[in-house]
């Protein structure tokens, strides 16, 4: 059994939870409104990513405060933690990690189940839309706050006919922590 799957369940049980319906419908209404305001599907994808990023840079504090995990020793552990603890703690669903590249700097985060998309169907006019793009931004923003610059994008989307939600997570750079003052001053 993967080492982190039970901590995820325990954390989720301890946070304040709400009916997912409100969340699903709110997100859906936001996407709908963005599509009306922007018309260009690519622009909406970008807006969702930006919104996600802004959420992620704050959500990481919430996560670190509640998840009670130790510092991840490498990127592999980071990815596993996102999939098993992160997704579980917030969305109530557990993801999995697969398709690592040779360096261990790129992998896939896979979700079979996703509360964002309950009751959602994409119409013909929105075929280029990555409905859950907000998740990419959230992961990117959260990881940036813990010194990792990454690129996250969807490669598989059930709403577009694939069999799962798969995000490709790529580590671009590990940025060493900068202190605002020098030690010897």
């Amino acid at each position, binding site marked *: 059994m993967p080492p982190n799957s039970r901590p995820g369940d325990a954390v*989720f049980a301890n*946070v*304040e*939870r*709400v*009916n*997912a*319906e*409100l*969340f699903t*419908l*709110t*997100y859906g*209404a*936001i996407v*709908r*409104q963005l599509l009306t*305001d922007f018309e260009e599907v690519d622009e909406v994808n970008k*807006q969702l990513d*930006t*919104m996600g990023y*802004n*959420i992620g840079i*704050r*959500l990481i504090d*919430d996560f670190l405060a509640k998840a009670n995990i130790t510092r991840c020793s490498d990127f592999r552990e980071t990815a596993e933690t996102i999939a098993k603890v992160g997704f579980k*703690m*917030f*969305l*109530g669903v557990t993801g999995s990690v697969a398709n690592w590249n040779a360096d261990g700097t790129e992998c896939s985060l896979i979700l079979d189940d996703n*509360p964002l998309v*309950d009751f959602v169907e994409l119409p013909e006019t929105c075929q280029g839309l990555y409905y859950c793009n907000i998740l990419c931004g959230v992961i990117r923003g959260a990881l940036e706050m813990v010194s990792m610059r990454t690129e996250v994008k969807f490669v598989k989307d059930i709403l577009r006919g694939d069999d799962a939600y798969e995000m490709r997570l790529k580590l671009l750079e590990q940025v060493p922590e900068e202190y605002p003052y020098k030690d010897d001053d």
Partner: protein
Amino acid sequence: MAREVAESCIDSVNLELVHTYCMRLHPTKPELAARRIEAIGFQVGLQLAERYTKERPRFADHLEAIKFICKDFWAEVFKKQIDNLKTNHRGVFVLQDNRFRWLTRVSLDAPTTSNGSASGESTQATSARASQAAGQYLYFPCGLIRGALTNFGVACAVSAEVSTLPACSFIVRIKV
């Protein structure tokens, strides 16, 4: 058992909704931002109301619909009921929530005088500052109420007022 997500998801999305529309997309047009956010709330309110009243018969009158909002709807969405309902019996209802869930994380910076100590501020000034700080976060819940009532056949306009955080009032004006 209905599906659940962490409450911080809803909080984050709400916060980001306000930031996106009020600060990124329409920083110079607060009215437009307010209308967009309210429209999003309206959509959600409409859909939630439909789901929460699937098994119920129609409401007998406006008051019944408003009472449903105060008790069942509020309980489903905010895990508590409206604390106080007032009406002038002429189509205006005031729904007061003494601890509105989505405002519990909004705080006001304490006003300071030039020598740094907190000044004794009049309640009017505090409530003006509270309105300003919290106002943007209330467009969505106003839309929620308006959408739900519209689903019940009650055409109305909804606005909100904040005097002391985290208490706020929603004012429903029935359209004849």
